């Protein structure tokens, strides 16, 4: 096996040094009744070339290739990824390093993460951003736990029903053992969250909204954060599409206290939903309640600028069970990748790209309306929206699929009362011709 360098002579000589007769003898401390005895029914080992063939065959069973036009976002977005980002993120000095416990040997990772924290903080309007969480869903769960820690005695949080259903499910799973109550807020006719239920309550630790929300609708975060603060709660906002903040007012500007979400849009492949990137930031006042790793700037013995993991006193290896979270390994190379992507876009580029997503989405929305579709939620959108159709859309959906176009995600599995409604997503990867083809099928 090419990963195992030992020759039989070396093994013999090393065993002699140790004073053990055989490799099996190294395991004499393992009692017989703990032993694996049955052979493993695993496939025979594959050569590199056989492995290529095998994965090639599996790839062949995927209905869609990389050039298919997938007009589905719902938490996983198709954006172009520059070759530079792939190439630089694939550098093995970054990829094959561990968490930077020895900062002198990891300044590349550390400066790169510090830059990621900074650019993300600027994008979201936050004072502090951590080195990453696992994904958007677990980030939301951790944000709610953080809200409960800050509020101390309150045991209830509220989440909008317009937050990604999978994110809400993760939040429920995380909060279930401690028996925290999770209230779900209804969605108004315009697709925004109904906050009227907060008016008479003072027992809620934190309220979470998503913007743009699962239906693509941009929440009125300024009004919402004021209402949430009036109820004595912290305002948490989450997102699945960070590109939106290249165009829209950022959550910090709108009054959010904690912002979390999924950063996959920034240079990371969809890859069947992972690895992605949990982005997580907060206002300065809450820094010491923040979960996750943080990189900070400092100086070395000679006064040179350098970076280290810091504020470890919040973390599990020092605070043990009192830690702000149990997160250890996070999504390091994904955060580096997002940093590279944000650097490649720049302030000018992110505006232009966000605008392009917005314009194309509006184009499809208008084209579908002209073709007879209706838009159930009137609220403004960024690059996703919900449509419904005068006739059963399934045949048109199937005809488009035959052309390698996935025309939206039917919502009944996630929202049973929304059967027949489709959630569409349009990014820069979808050309006008594809949008026109979809509209034509709706008319047909």
């Amino acid at each position, binding site marked *: 096996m090419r990963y195992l360098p030992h020759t039989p002579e070396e093994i013999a000589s090393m065993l002699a040094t140790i004073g053990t007769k055989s490799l099996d003898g190294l395991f004499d401390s393992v009692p017989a009744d703990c032993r694996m005895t049955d052979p*493993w029914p695993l496939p025979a080992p594959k050569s590199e070339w056989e492995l290529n063939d095998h994965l090639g065959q599996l790839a062949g069973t995927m209905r869609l290739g990389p050039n298919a036009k997938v007009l589905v976002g719902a938490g996983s977005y198709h954006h172009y990824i520059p070759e530079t980002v792939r190439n630089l993120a694939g550098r093995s000095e970054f990829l094959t390093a561990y968490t930077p416990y020895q900062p002198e040997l990891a300044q590349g990772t550390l400066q790169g993460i510090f830059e990621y924290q900074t650019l993300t903080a600027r994008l979201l309007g936050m004072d502090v951003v951590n080195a990453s969480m696992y994904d958007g869903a677990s980030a939301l769960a951790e944000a709610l736990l953080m809200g409960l820690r800050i509020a101390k005695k309150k045991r209830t949080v509220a989440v909008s029903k317009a937050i990604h259903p999978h994110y809400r499910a993760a939040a429920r799973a995380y909060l279930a053992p401690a028996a925290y109550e999770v209230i779900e807020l209804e969605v108004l006719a315009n697709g925004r969250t109904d906050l009227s239920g907060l008016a008479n309550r003072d027992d809620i630790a934190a309220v979470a909204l998503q913007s743009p929300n699962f239906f693509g609708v941009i929440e009125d975060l300024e009004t919402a954060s004021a209402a949430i603060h009036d109820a004595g709660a912290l305002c948490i906002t989450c997102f699945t599409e960070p590109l939106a903040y290249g165009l829209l007012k950022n959550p910090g500007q709108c009054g959010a206290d904690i912002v979390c979400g999924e950063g996959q849009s920034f240079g990371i492949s969809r890859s069947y939903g992972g690895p992605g990137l949990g982005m997580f930031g907060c206002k300065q006042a809450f820094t010491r309640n923040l979960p996750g790793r943080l990189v900070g700037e400092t100086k070395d013995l000679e006064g040179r600028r350098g970076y280290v993991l810091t504020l470890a006193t919040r973390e599990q290896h020092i605070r043990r069970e009192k830690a702000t979270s149990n997160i250890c390994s996070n999504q390091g190379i994904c955060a580096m990748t997002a940093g590279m992507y944000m650097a490649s876009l720049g302030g000018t580029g992110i505006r232009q790209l966000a*605008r392009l997503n917005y314009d194309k989405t509006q184009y499809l929305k208008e084209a579908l309306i002209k073709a007879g579709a209706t838009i159930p939620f009137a609220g403004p959108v960024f690059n996703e929206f919900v449509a419904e159709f005068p006739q059963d859309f399934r045949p048109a959906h199937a005809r488009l699929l035959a052309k390698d176009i996935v025309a939206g995600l039917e919502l009944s599995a996630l929202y049973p009362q929304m059967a027949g409604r489709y959630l569409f997503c349009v990014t820069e990867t979808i050309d006008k011709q594809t949008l026109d083809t979809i509209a034509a099928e709706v008319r047909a």
Partner: protein
Amino acid sequence: MNEPLGTGGLILNEPLLWHKGKKGRIGMSIPESDVPAAPIASDLLGTDVDFPDLSEVDVVRHYTRLSQWNFGVDTGMYPLGSCTMKYNPKTNERQAATPEIASAHPMLADDLNQGTLRILYELQQYLAIITGLDAVSLQPAAGAHGELTGMLIFHAWHKSRGAQRHKILIPDTAHGTNPASAALCGYKAVPVPSDAQGMLDPALVAELMDEDTAGIMVTNPNTLGLFEERIREIAAIVHAKGGLVYGDGANMNAVLGVIDAKKCGIDVLHLNLHKTFSTPHGGGGPGAGPVCVTRELEPFLPVPRAVKDGETYRLEDNRPQSVGRIHAFHGNFGVLVRAYSYILSMGEAGLKKASQLAVLNANYIKEQLKTVLHLPYDRPCMHECVFSDLWQQEYKISTVDMAKRLIDCGFHPPTIYFPLIVHGAMMIEPTETECKDDIDQFIATVKTIVLEAAEQPELLHQAPQRTKVRRLDEVQAARCPCLIGPSGTGD
């Protein structure tokens, strides 16, 4: 082979991103718009984002220079204990980047994603076979996420039996994240001290285990690199009191093909695919921490599960007793593809051989270094061995000094000051992918450093000197945290 690895390299400076670039540059290609500009309400519009504008060359040079300040497994030996920094095969990167797989969308219908579903299903099967347990969830995104999932399963199982419990036993030789993972589920951690041999004592477990204790979290082999020989006895005690046994499988690289987790009495076990199964650690992730359980606990695993009907694969989420979702989709799928590729490349014989050689390498280092470094627990070790700085204290040299001197000599240091039960610990895990020549060079280097500690201690106190930066002021970093760059510094 006697030539030292560490030399002074050509190290270039590189400013922070926002001190580079010029307004109006761009580093990536954006398609021309082929649709009309749409109106947008002014109250939605944000101000310009304060990112620096960089060209493609600016970006490439920036990150290339940063990368050269880093040390990875591809650079050299990385004997970081309990982290299993083995070689990360290049072919695994290619497999994860297979275009149809890398572009797969997680929200589409199962009939569109048969290939990725099959990978999930088969990897679940393979990990069950390898651990001896019955069912697997691939959703946890890291080891600590696996621990949390395991604790959620403990909690849900106890709840299903009608009586909730409030404590959990955690030995002092367990991994550092265990108490925090248990605390997330409301369990109070009850520490279990190990005995003079570094092992868990069943009598003590029997004393501490009661009917308000949910179970025990055991790291086996433990963080001293020792196999908990009485694990079955301990499991029986915990089970008799109605508790469950959690196995932290972070150290699985020692015992592939040797132990059967189910026979050991383990009910829930997590694996670290970024350790044992060769996926790269990425400077801090993404990892993957699949959770393997007994048949009895299968209903509690996170949803969705990947299942097979005839020749078709599908996701199944109708499991009423499940702890629910702990990730938006299927965990770090790209990492799972790499581990799947590794298992297919290694096969049964290769995986078992890997553990044998990992243990061989660790014992070889232990035998050769125990004459110069204090070895607090002198027993046959598994995949790692733990020394201390006891014998260097007379020269006022501590573990950190030896670790930093190793950097100047071209090696990544071992894990230091962990486990906590060894004062001044140095935890060395070579892994199986290091060859004898490199290990001999590492041993010779440590021996030289030990001599230097007595004869030229200043060399150690001043180390490292050949890196981009020297020792960093961590106290200052924590006292006046600077966690993001100042705003308004973009050009």
